[in-house]
C-alpha cells in the first residue's frame, strides 16, 4: 500500500491491501491477536495470508529479543498470496519487539507501541543503547505512543483480577485499536472471548473491556493518522475456514485414507517444523487414525512401511535431519514396491541448521538421497491450503503406483495460514487400489499393471496370496530372490520406468502469462505466493514475463520441455543454492537455465523479486 497509507488528516482512506504485524513477548498473546484480526478480516470478506514468527528459544527471558513472538497478516480487496513483505502497521508491545521487528516495518509506515513498556530496564534488556523513541531511530515512521498497559489496567479496575491476568489482556487493547483503525466489528472477537473464558467470567469481561477500551481510545486520540478501509475482495463463493499448511497436510492424509476406507497410520518422531502434523493427527483417532510416536525416525518410517505392507495407509513425517535418517528404509519401500508417503517439512540447514526457519533445500535428498538406483516420486505443495490437496495426492500416487512418494512442504507453508474453501470428500478424485490376481492358480507378487507398471497390493490376511518379499533384488514376476544379472538390469529399469510413467497421471504445467515473453520465471513449492505476486505485478505493468510453478518434481510434468524451449531465459528462483535448477539442467541440456537463490531462512520478498526480474528483463 505504498501509495495509500499516509500521514495526514483523520479521514478514511481506501486501500487495496495492507500488511499488519503484531509483535510482543512470547507471553503477550500475539499469535492470538493476529489470528483474531485475520478471522475478523476474513469474515468481512478480505482475502488474506498470515505467518507467525516464533522465537527460536522455548521461553527466553521476558523482555529479551530472543523471546519476541510475531504474527504478520496481509489483507486485501485483491487476491493475496503472501503475508506481505513489510508491515504497513507494526504493533510493538515492548522495546524488544520493536528492536527485532523494526526490520520488517515499511519506512513511512505506522508503528504502534505500548509506551508504558518503554522504561529504562526494558530498553536496556532489548539491547538498545539509548531510548529509540527519543534517539531518532524511528524518524522514518509514524509512531503512535499509546499507554496500552496503563489504560488496560484502568479499564479493568474493579474486576478482581490479579495483575498477571490484567497484563495478559493488553493484547486485546491493541487489537481493539486495530479494529478501529481498519473499521472492523468487535463482535466476532467478543464471541470468541466469551467462548474461551466461559469458565472464568471475570476474564471474559476483562478481555472484552480491554478490547473496547482500545477501540475507543483509538477513536479518540489524535495520533492515528487516518482510518483505513480495505474493502472485501471478490472471492469465490463457498464456505471457508482458515488452515495452516501442517493442519492441511494432516487433513489431506486423513481424507485420502477415509476415501480409501483404510486406516491412516502415522509413524513419526517429533521435529520442528513437522511436529504439528503429528499433533493434529493424534487428535483424530476416532477417524481411523493411528499415530505412533516412534523411538526415532528410522522406526517411524519402518513402522509406516509395515503398516502399508499390511494394507493401511502408511505415512511418516519429518524434516531435514530426520529425512536423512530415513533414506535406507525408503529404499526398502522402493525395492519391495509398497506404498509409502514421506512428508518432509523443510527447514534451514545443513545439519541442525536453523530449525525454526524455512528453506527449500531438500530436493536433492528427496530425489537422490538413497543408495543405488532408488527412484521415488517427489511432489511439493505450494500454499498452506493446497498442502491438503498434495497430501491427498501423495497417498493417491503411492497407492496407485505402489512406491514411495515424498511430499515436500516447508516451514513457511507449515506455519503460514490462509482462508481455504475446503472441499467435500465426495468431490475428491477416486483412489484406485491395484487388486491382486492369480494367474492359473499361482500368485505372482511382482506381476504388474501394464500401464502403470505397478504391482498389486496383496496384504497379509488375504487367503491364498501368501508370499515373501524383501530388500534383495527380486526376480521378475515371482518376487523370489534373484542374483541374475539380466534380471537385475530389467528390474532396475522397470522401477525407474514405473516412476517415469507417473508423468502420465499428473497434470501438465500451467503457464501464467502470454507465452511471448522472453523471460520465464520458474518456481516450485512454497515460494509460489511471492513469485506469483511479483510476476503478476510486472505483467500488470506490461512487462514480458511469464511464470510456471512446479508441484511435481519427479517425474516432471510432460510439457516441461515444450514450455521451456520457447524462452531465451529461464530463471529458476529457489530458497537454496539452485537444486531445482541443477535438476532441470540435467534433464534439459541446451536450455538457458539461470538461478536466483536466497538462503536466509526467510521467504522471498515481492519487492526483491521484482527488482531481480526487471534486471533480467533489461539485458
Amino acid at each position: 500500500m505504498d501509495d495509500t497509507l499516509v500521514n495526514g488528516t483523520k479521514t478514511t482512506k481506501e486501500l487495496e491491501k495492507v500488511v499488519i504485524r503484531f509483535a510482543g513477548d512470547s507471553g503477550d498473546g500475539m499469535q492470538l491477536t493476529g489470528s483474531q484480526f485475520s478471522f475478523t478480516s476474513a469474515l468481512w470478506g478480505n482475502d488474506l495470508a498470515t505467518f507467525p514468527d516464533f522465537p527460536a528459544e522455548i521461553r527466553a527471558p521476558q523482555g529479551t529479543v530472543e523471546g519476541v513472538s510475531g504474527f504478520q497478516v496481509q489483507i486485501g480487496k485483491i487476491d493475496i498470496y503472501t503475508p506481505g513483505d513489510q508491515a504497513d502497521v507494526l504493533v510493538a508491545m515492548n522495546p524488544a519487539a520493536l528492536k527485532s521487528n523494526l526490520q520488517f516495518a515499511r519506512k513511512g509506515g505506522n508503528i504502534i507501541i505500548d509506551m508504558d513498556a518503554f522504561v529504562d530496564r526494558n530498553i536496556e534488556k532489548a539491547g538498545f543503547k539509548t531510548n529509540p523513541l527519543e534517539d531518532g531511530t524511528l524518524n522514518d515512521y509514524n509512531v503512535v505512543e499509546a499507554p496500552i498497559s496503563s489504560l488496560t489496567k484502568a479499564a479493568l479496575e474493579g474486576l478482581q483480577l490479579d495483575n498477571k491476568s490484567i497484563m495478559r489482556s493488553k493484547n486485546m487493547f491493541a487489537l481493539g485499536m486495530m479494529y478501529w483503525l481498519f473499521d472492523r466489528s468487535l463482535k466476532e472477537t467478543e464471541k470468541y472471548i466469551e467462548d474461551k473464558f466461559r469458565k472464568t467470567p471475570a476474564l471474559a469481561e476483562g478481555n472484552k473491556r480491554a478490547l473496547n477500551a482500545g477501540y475507543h481510545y483509538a477513536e479518540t486520540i489524535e495520533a492515528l493518522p487516518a482510518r483505513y478501509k480495505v474493502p472485501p475482495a471478490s472471492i469465490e463463493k463457498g464456505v471457508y475456514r482458515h488452515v495452516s499448511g501442517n493442519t492441511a497436510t494432516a487433513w489431506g492424509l486423513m481424507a485420502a485414507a477415509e476415501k480409501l476406507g483404510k486406516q491412516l497410520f502415522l509413524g513419526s518422531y517429533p521435529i520442528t517444523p513437522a511436529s504439528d502434523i503429528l499433533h493434529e493427527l493424534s487428535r483424530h483417532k476416532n477417524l481411523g487414525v493411528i499415530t505412533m510416536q516412534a523411538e526415532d525416525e528410522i522406526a517411524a518410517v519402518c513402522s509406516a512401511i509395515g503398516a502399508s505392507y499390511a494394507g493401511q495407509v502408511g505415512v511418516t513425517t519429518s524434516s531435514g535431519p530426520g529425512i536423512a535418517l530415513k533414506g535406507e528404509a525408503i529404499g526398502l519401500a522402493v525395492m519391495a514396491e509398497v506404498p509409502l508417503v514421506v512428508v518432509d517439512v523443510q527447514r534451514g540447514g545443513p545439519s541442525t541448521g536453523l530449525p525454526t526457519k524455512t528453506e527449500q533445500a531438500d530436493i536433492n535428498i528427496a530425489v537422490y538421497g538413497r543408495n543405488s538406483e532408488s527412484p521415488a516420486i517427489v511432489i511439493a505443495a505450494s500454499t498452506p491450503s493446497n498442502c491438503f490437496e498434495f497430501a491427498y495426492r501423495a497417498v493417491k500416487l503411492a497407492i496407485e503406483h505402489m512406491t514411495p512418494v515424498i511430499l515436500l512442504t516447508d516451514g513457511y507453508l507449515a506455519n503460514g495460514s490462509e482462508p481455504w474453501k475446503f472441499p467435500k470428500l465426495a468431490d475428491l478424485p477416486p483412489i484406485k487400489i491395484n487388486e491382486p490376481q492369480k494367474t492359473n492358480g499361482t500368485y505372482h507378487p511382482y506381476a504388474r499393471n501394464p500401464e502403470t507398471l505397478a504391482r498389486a497390493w496383496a496384504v497379509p490376511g488375504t487367503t491364498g496370496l501368501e508370499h515373501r518379499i524383501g530388500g534383495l533384488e527380486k526376480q521378475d514376476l515371482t518376487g523370489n530372490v534373484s542374483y541374475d544379472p539380466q534380471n537385475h538390469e530389467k528390474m532396475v529399469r522397470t522401477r525407474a520406468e514405473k516412476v517415469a510413467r507417473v508423468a502420465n497421471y499428473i497434470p501438465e504445467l500451467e503457464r501464467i502469462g502470454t507465452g511471448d515473453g522472453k523471460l520465464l520465471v520458474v518456481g516450485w513449492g512454497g515460494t509460489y505466493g511471492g513469485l506469483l505476486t511479483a510476476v503478476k505485478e510486472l505483467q500488470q505493468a506490461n512487462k514480458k514475463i511469464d511464470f510456471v510453478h512446479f508441484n511435481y518434481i519427479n517425474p516432471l510434468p510432460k510439457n516441461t520441455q515444450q514450455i521451456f524451449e520457447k524462452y531465451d531465459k529461464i530463471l529458476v528462483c529457489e530458497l537454496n543454492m539452485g537444486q531445482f535448477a541443477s535438476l532441470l539442467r540435467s534433464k534439459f541440456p541446451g536450455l538457458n537455465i539461470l538461478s536466483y537463490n536466497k538462503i536466509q531462512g526467510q521467504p522471498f520478498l515481492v519487492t526483491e523479486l521484482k527488482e531481480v526480474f526487471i534486471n533480467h528483463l533489461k539485458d
Partner: protein
Amino acid sequence: MENTIDIPQQKLTKKDFESDQLVRWCPGCGDYSILSAMTNALPQLNIPRENVVFISGIGCAARFPYYMNTYGFHTIHGRGPAVATGVKLANPKLSVWEIQGDGDAMAIGGNHFIHALRRNIDINIILFNNEIYGLTKGQYSPTSPTGLVTKSTPYGSIERPFHAAELVIGAQGTFYARTIDTNPKLMTEIFVHAAKHMGTSLVEVLQNCVIFNDDAHAAVTARENRDDFQLHVKHGQPLLFGKENKKGIRLNGLKLEVVTLGENGITEKDILVHDAHAEDPTLHLMLARMAPPHFPMALGVIREVRAKTYDEAIAEEREKITKNAKYHSVDDLLKSGETWEIK
C-alpha cells in the same frame, strides 16, 4: 479386544508351513532345527496360514521368512521390530513373528528391540543368538564373549557382552524365554507358549553357527553337559535339575546357590519355586543370570507377565475417543470450528 484370531477351516500340518524355496543355510547350521521347530509349532496354534506374518531384518537368521509358506517380509538390518510393529498395528488380527540374529537385534537394531519390549506390542520375537555375525562372515557381535577371536578381533574381542535376558527385562519386557537349537521339543513348546503370550514375547535361542563360532554354546548344549548345566524352569515348579533331579537352586540372602537334595539335610522344601508371573523381575533376573561353570543355565519361560499390550491400548483408546467424538468423518471435521461463507 479385537485381537481375536480366526480359526482355519481345516487342521494345518507342518508341511503347510514350508515354502517352496531351497533352504540355504550352511550344512549343520542350527537354524535348520529352529525352522523345523517353527513349522511344528504353528499348526498347534490353529491360526490360518494367511494370518501369519514373518518379519525379519538382515542376517543368516533373517532369511527365515523365505522358508515359511506364510506372508513374509525380509526387511533391512535391525529394523524388523519397527516394521513388525507397523504390521501388527495395521492389522491386529495377524500373528506376527519377528526373526532376528544377535547382531540384528542387539547391535544395529538395539533401539527398536528395547522399544518394542517397552511398548509390549503383541508380537513374537525369536532371537537367534549365535554370538557372531554369520552373514557377513564372522565378526564378533554384542553377545560375543570377551576374548573371542573373529575377523574383526584378530587379537580377541575386548568388549563386554550384553546378556539378552538382562537387556530384555531392563527394557520392561514382559516375556522372556530361553531355549537351545539342539532341543526341538523344547523349542516347539516355547514357540507355542510365546505365541499365546499377549505382549512382546522374546525367545532367545542359543544357536550354533558351525562356520564362524562353532560350539559357542557347548557348555550348555553338549550332550555331556545336559544334566548338569541345563535347568528347565516351569512356573510353579521347584527349580530342580541334574541327573534324576537331584540338584536344586536355593535362595541365600540375595544370592542363589546350587544344592543337592539329601545332602546336608536339604529337601525339596528348601528349593526355590519358579514364579514366572511375578511382576517384580528380581527372581527372573537372578535365574537368567545363572550360567556354567558354577550354575546350570535356565531354559524355558523365565518371565511371563501380563500387562496391557500396545495394540490393546490403542484399541481401547480408540473406542473411548470414538464414543465421545463430536464428528465422524473428515467432512464433519473440516466443517467444525470457525468457518464462514462467502455468498
